[in-house]
């Protein structure tokens, strides 16, 4: 008996609709995040992640309805990220049916927000999203800095914060899990930034989810074996049917990684 490595498909949701289309044959409405969630639930995904990229304030509430409708039909853990600024945002998501929330920009701008959220809802439901890019020149971060810097706004805005230090501080403040995304690799299908993933996973006592860049099943294996991740997150390889969740699980299992096959 042992804890299994998790596979987490991630759905980008904008104004209540899936953005990067999910191409499953059986879906009546491929743009409906709830339909996609149900398909992943049936396919054996270990958790589900919704990333809300709704830009306009008036459509922000659409995510609550998506989460609520998902929770009515899906009996699997759901994490929601994107646009979370306040303790009230978190409460509304949890009451809608989310199990965990992923915090990014707010954790950068106001580190105490992580503490307040963890005190209120427990460490286990606070995920801090560590969006990092490799520095162009080492000296920019100072002598003691790592090779990576934290970015916000989908990798566009540099913050000057060292990624490893940010990760360690976030856990000290109460993050129960870190979602580590290489903004260099995101969307490239070249595989995770394994050095980044491992540097953070080895520096903290909480689980790390590897994210950004998966193009092949070997990338998932490497994320766990070389990146030391507890879970792997991917979007397009699953959405576009390149691989099914079952194929990914079987492949990882064949490579010696314990997976949940029921």
């Amino acid at each position, binding site marked *: *008996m*042992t*804890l*299994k*490595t*998790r596979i987490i498909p991630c759905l980008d949701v904008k104004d209540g609709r899936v953005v990067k289309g999910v191409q499953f044959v059986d879906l009546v409405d491929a743009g409906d995040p709830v339909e996609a969630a149900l398909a992943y*639930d049936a396919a054996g995904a*270990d958790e589900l992640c919704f990333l809300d990229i709704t830009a306009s304030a008036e459509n922000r509430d659409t995510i609550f309805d998506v989460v*609520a409708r998902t*929770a*009515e*039909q899906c*009996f*699997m*853990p759901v994490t929601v990220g994107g646009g979370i600024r306040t303790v009230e945002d978190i409460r509304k998501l*949890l*009451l*809608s*049916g*989310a*199990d*965990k929330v992923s915090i990014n920009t707010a954790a950068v701008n106001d580190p105490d927000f992580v503490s307040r959220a963890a*005190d*209120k*809802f*427990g*460490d*286990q*439901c606070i995920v801090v999203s560590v969006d990092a890019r490799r520095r162009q020149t080492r000296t920019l971060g100072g002598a003691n800095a790592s090779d990576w810097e934290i970015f916000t706004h989908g990798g566009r805005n540099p913050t000057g914060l060292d990624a490893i230090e940010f990760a360690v501080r976030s856990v000290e403040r109460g993050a*129960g*899990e870190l979602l580590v995304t290489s903004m260099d690799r995101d969307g490239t299908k070249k595989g995770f930034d394994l050095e980044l993933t491992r540097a953070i996973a080895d520096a903290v*006592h*909480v*689980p790390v989810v590897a994210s950004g860049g998966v193009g092949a099943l070997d990338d998932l294996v490497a994320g766990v074996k070389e990146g030391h991740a*507890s*879970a792997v997150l991917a979007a397009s390889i699953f959405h576009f049917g390149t691989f099914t969740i079952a194929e990914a699980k079987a492949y990882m299992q064949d490579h010696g990684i314990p997976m*949940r096959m*029921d």
Partner: protein
Amino acid sequence: MTGAVAIIDYGSGNLRSAAKAFERSVRALRAETEVAVTNDPDLVRRADRIVLPGVGAFEDCMNGLTAVKGMREALEERVIKGGVPFLGICVGMQLMATEGLEKGTWPGLGWISGAVVRLEPRGGLKVPHMGWNTLKFTQPHPLLANIPDGEAGLHAYFVHSYHLATTDERTLFATADYGQAVTACVGRDNMFGTQFHPEKSQTLGLSLIENFLEWTP
């Protein structure tokens, strides 16, 4: 089977998922059971089954529960004296303990002797214990009937940093292996508790909930 299940709402946790999982199990059993999420002690008194969910810190949950006027009294009256079937989930299960040692020392309901202590897994394993693990049943129980355990068994979804270290092995029903024997299920008489989340544990969870709905302790 008819009657009503009261899921206690004391401001902690994801009650929608729990309620939906119970409603689905009621449908699977073709039963007429009503599932109510409530903070009304009188409704709890009238319920045929009681569920206490909970996520967050031990102290916050205990404070939340005692802050609902009359709720603790209603619980003790129905569960301890009335023998109504009771299920505690996650921190709701931990609250059954004598005390909790998370961020201080706090008294629990005192139904299961033992303390809620931090996980200390061997081998530098990550805490929280987060994800899917199999179970090992330490003794049979009606709520665990027809659920395969062991290496090839079904998985349950855990997310926690503390667990209930029971001092009476007769109250321990299942463990999970995570660098230590993690308490997964406790119980005695008409009460049962799961550290994992049945409402998030797909097949295993829905089976356990169905077993609870049919349980006649």
